[in-house]
């Protein structure tokens, strides 16, 4: 299985270009050729000035997210053979994020949102050194484990129409990470995360399109995490309301 394919790449160099423009390359492929391999081929032999991010080439570092024929994908886990029947393959930087250059997107907004939800294990008492592990059964771990597989590639932000409209929306990866810690039996930080989850840019902004889960290359299912977050948010609201009505000072 082999052939050659037209790869059309969106270029944008802020120092020289007023607007993005398109450049096409004819790229030879074999069964194993990934979109990342194609980009490396272009950079090595066609045009050394093409910029994009990559590292691990095994779908775990999360660097090489981009739009492939309008779909958010990891370059290293997308193969040219699947586009053999298409006229061309079109590569753009991730949707909904600003372009820094060529295929390099500004992912800082996503990282800022991740930081907002305080994604670290919180305990009333600090690290109890000298003691053993916090016990956690495989069943307890299963409640959050798949939500801990996020590689921060940003594909879900490129897929999310809500984030596209409102960049302040915390978005799929951040909300999933919040849920990952909230569901962890070792964590006691739920109360400090709830204001962000309940806030106007939290779970209730999600309109449950679910495209984030479709494009996730690690099957994290952020849509499910957010939906669970909505349930938790409702419970949290009900509990607080109950405490308020009861007039207790433990609210």
């Amino acid at each position, binding site marked *: 299985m082999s052939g050659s394919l037209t790869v059309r790449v969106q270029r944008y160099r802020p*120092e020289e270009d007023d607007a993005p423009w398109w450049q096409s390359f004819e790229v030879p492929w074999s069964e194993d050729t990934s979109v990342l391999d194609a980009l490396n081929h272009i*950079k090595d032999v066609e045009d050394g000035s093409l910029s994009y991010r*990559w590292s691990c080439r095994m779908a775990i*570092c999360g*660097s090489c997210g981009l739009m492939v024929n309008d779909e958010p994908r990891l370059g290293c886990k997308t193969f040219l053979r699947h586009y053999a029947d298409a006229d061309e393959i079109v590569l753009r930087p991730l949707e909904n994020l600003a372009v820094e250059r060529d295929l390099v997107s500004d992912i800082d907004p996503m990282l800022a949102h991740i930081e907002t939800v305080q994604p670290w*294990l919180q305990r009333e008492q600090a690290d109890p050194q000298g003691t053993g592990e916090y*016990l956690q059964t495989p069943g307890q771990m299963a409640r959050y484990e798949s939500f801990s*597989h996020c*590689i921060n590639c940003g594909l879900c932000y490129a897929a999310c129409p809500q984030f596209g409209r409102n960049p302040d929306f915390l978005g799929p990866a951040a909300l999933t990470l919040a849920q990952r810690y909230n569901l962890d039996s070792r964590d006691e930080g739920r109360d400090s995360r709830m204001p962000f989850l309940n806030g106007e840019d939290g779970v209730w902004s999600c309109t449950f399109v679910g495209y984030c889960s479709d494009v996730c290359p690690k099957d994290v299912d952020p849509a499910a995490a957010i939906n669970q977050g909505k349930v938790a948010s409702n419970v949290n609201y009900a509990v607080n309301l109950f405490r308020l009505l009861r007039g207790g000072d433990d609210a």
Partner: protein
Amino acid sequence: MDIQHSDVDIVIVGGGGAGLRAAIAAAEHAPELRIALLSKVYPMRSHTVAAEGGCAGVVQDHDSHFDHFVDTVSGGDWLCDQDVVDYFVEHATEENLRLEHWGCPWSRKPDGRVNVRAFGGMKIERTWFAADRTGFHILHTLFQTSLNYPSIQRHDEFFCTDLLVDEGRCVGVQAIDMREGHHMCLRAGAVILATGGAGRVYRYNTNGGIVTGDGMAMAWRQGVPLRDMEFVQYHPTGLPGSGILITEACRGEGGLLLNADGYRYLQDYGLGPETPPGSPRTKYMELGPRDRLSQAFWHEARAGRVLKTRRGEAVQLDLRHLGEARINERLPFIRELASAYVGVDPVTEPIPVRPTAHYTMGGIQTDIHTATPLPGLFAVGECASIGLHGANRLGSNSLAELSVFGRVAGEQAASHARAAGVPDAAVLREQVEHNAAGWEALREADGDESLAAIRDALGESMERGAGIFRSGEELATTCATLAELRLRYQSLGLTDRSRVFNTEWLNAIELGCQLDVASAMARAAQGREESRGSHQRLDATARDDQRFLCHSLVRRADNGHATVDWQPVVITRLPPGERHYGKAGEAPALEKRA
């Protein structure tokens, strides 16, 4: 030239496991200090992320620090500094527990306690794991935990180019802000290099594109010795073609290695007798150490007993007898990788695998406190040679090393920075401008040599001359080729003159680092006229303790060439003995000496 200057107390270069652990340790040890964490990628992209199988730490009742010590020292063919190994085995478990307390989702036993698995060269199961994404989870746990320390200021996508030295002391670093393309000078009381390994100098490797030996080269250019650089680990199971890592945990869980005839060939290489499928036995067969397994493949390939696939020669890693449920529980990422990159479902088919370059045992020389010979400069993790791994690292020792010595580096650097203070800006101005001018000239390079051609020739030459087996003759050829490539590098031609995210320019800087590091590797391999651990010489097949029970130190001479000399190994309580695995390893001699 517009160069931004800034003052901090500690600069950490590299945001992988070692750099993040050091940053947290420094922040906890000295909350008043300003810590700058520089990385050429966002920290969670660092190559720690790709470690799969596990992280060592004694935890079972019938295990002991001494057992871990013996496995590590004999696994390293007695080239480990034994005081360092002692410190390491005594602190690995507490660091794994700390990661647990920070949220790392270690795989559990039904009672809720942390589980451990068998690993190559380890006599007793002591490898903690998070399925087969252990490095990923450690890295993300450390990154997320680091967000809770306001004194850690991240500089993501800052490419460190130089160490700044004044009056024999490291006083900061110079870097390129990748988004703007500007040079930046960061003055500091202490600098920690945590820049990772250099596996990309080989054509076929398990490493990410970023693993280019930058920190090693920066230290080397300041006269800091690189130690034990001849010891490069070939991981026995990478995917043919791409080199993508297929974890040793496959064998820890019971996976079998078969040659083209379906025969478990390891029994012919001192690792037998054959253990029954489904009953893996530690230090036997597939659970032998990585150097021996990679060498066995080389012999099988020479004898024509390997598969010829369209991706190259391979043997078969058979997991089928583990069953789908076990594979999904313990090795889900391996199933994903095999399916995506070679179209094989390990539930129904063996995975084709072959040895590929994986890990640099050597690195920047440090003492047991992670201090390099250059005052103010510390180094930790794969970029460093603290003396832990000797001539062959055992799988799962390097992830634990990141935490154990990352903490040490953070604390040591914090103490040093408190005492040293930040140097005056004026003394560095000339040095910084000189460095920047050099990098600017590279950006404008208009020669006729191609970056990709030099990089590929480098990789091929290292495979040929400095691979699993070496010879004086082939090493001489590789050294000559490297010298020629360094000359060609002087005539490099780049096409991109821009500043913003100019990855061609950055790749060229990386290639310069790779050429320096490869030269140090080849030069050290030439000097070591014996066979030990991962360094096997066809023209000197025996270990020679008389001449070479010592570390190699490669230094940069004023003319840019490498000189080699030697440093004694620290031996405290396990005198040199023979390395045995399989049945031969049961010999009581070793136990008695211990």
